């Protein structure tokens, strides 16, 4: 049955966005945890730990997200997990986000002058205490604008989950196209919905950046 692309379909697309946002949130939490570990490993003074973090970031950043997604999708059955697009997408996107967030946050930690570490050390604080009480409070302020910027990348990239059949905004767009046969109108609407989500975040990130570094 071919029907016209109407308001009902737009409504369906809007509802499908909740899965885009759910996947983004999951990946951001999972990736945030991984990223935190990666960033701390990078500034640790133990070189094997640093090497592990570097390898992780290089490997993930040098592999297309699409490949990551498919490796996890087909790898699930090998480790005995149920082959569900949701699980594969959550894992792949968390691991992907972990590499990028880890690198962003390492940059923020590195930007804190070495003397701050030394001052903490002179006060008798251990590595963990220096990190928690001296370095991180300062680094967080610097890390927020690029983190929001990455969030935009993450939202856009969740569209790739459509390729393993995870029904989020883009997949819903494909399904709507199949039943209405009006790809131009459908995909423009889909793009517009992404824009509505991402543009405010982009502006916010830019605003935060200007505030922390002054006018460019």
């Amino acid at each position, binding site marked *: 049955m071919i029907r016209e692309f109407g308001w009902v379909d737009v409504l369906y697309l809007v509802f499908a966005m909740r899965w885009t946002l759910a996947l983004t949130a999951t990946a951001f939490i999972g990736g945030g945890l991984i990223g935190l570990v990666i960033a701390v490993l990078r500034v640790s003074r133990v070189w094997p730990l640093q090497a592990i973090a570097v390898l992780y970031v290089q490997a993930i950043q040098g*592999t297309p997200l*699409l490949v990551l997604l498919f490796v996890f999708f087909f790898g699930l059955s090998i480790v005995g997990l149920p082959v569900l697009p949701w699980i594969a997408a959550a894992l792949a996107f968390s691991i992907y986000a972990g590499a990028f967030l880890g690198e962003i946050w390492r940059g923020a930690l590195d930007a804190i002058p070495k003397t701050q570490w030394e001052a903490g050390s002179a006060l008798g604080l251990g590595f963990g205490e220096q990190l928690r009480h001296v370095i991180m409070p300062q680094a967080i302020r610097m890390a927020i604008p690029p983190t929001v910027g990455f969030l935009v990348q993450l939202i856009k990239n969740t569209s790739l989950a459509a390729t393993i059949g995870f029904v989020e905004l883009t997949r819903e767009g494909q399904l709507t196209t199949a039943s209405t046969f009006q790809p131009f109108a459908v995909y423009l609407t889909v793009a517009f919905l992404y824009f509505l989500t991402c543009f405010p975040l982009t502006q916010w990130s830019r605003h935060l950046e200007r505030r922390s570094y002054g006018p460019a």
Partner: protein
Amino acid sequence: MSYTFQFRDVFAAWEFILQGVAMTLYLSAVTMVLGLAIGVACAAGRLYGPKPLRVLVGVYVESIRNTPLLVQLFIIFFGLPSLGVRFDATTAAVITLAVNLGAYATEIVRAGLEAVPKAQVEAGHSLGLSGLQVFRHIVLFPALRMMYPSLASQFILLMLATSITSQIAVEDLFHVASIIQSRTFRDFEVYTVIGVLYLLLALVFRGGFALLYQLVFARR
């Protein structure tokens, strides 16, 4: 759970895989040139052009940067034919990738041009150089050096993103993987091998860009 990994069938298709690599390299190279050209033109338009042009470039950059590449690809490949504009898959892929990269390149080039201190431009003018001469002899080289690292990493991201064009059946490396998968059913193995190949390509690109930087910029 026991699973026997079998890579033999995957490696047997090496010639086919090589074709995919060639297509991925072709897509990357063509798009880099086109995307950079768009980026330079739009950055110039945004910095030196009249108001309407600046607004237009701003709309272009923001609408591309805030929507997914996959959806852009679908609009151009599946959507435009309903307006009577029809491309084959590879052309649609090149157009989409170039337009996409162009938006990111615009921002990078603009930031690079803006980063050249105003005083140097004024110094050039006071020596009696024309606008074009100032641009060529004073602004261009330092600006290029400043934008080079960002452009290089954007190019690598683009190379990885060419995998997305497999979704409209462009026969790139990723598409080759899905064909081998459907023939051998060795899905996990295929995508692991392809992943390693992409990783190697990314390393080669990174090495190449670093070498180019040494050759062009380091001696100055």
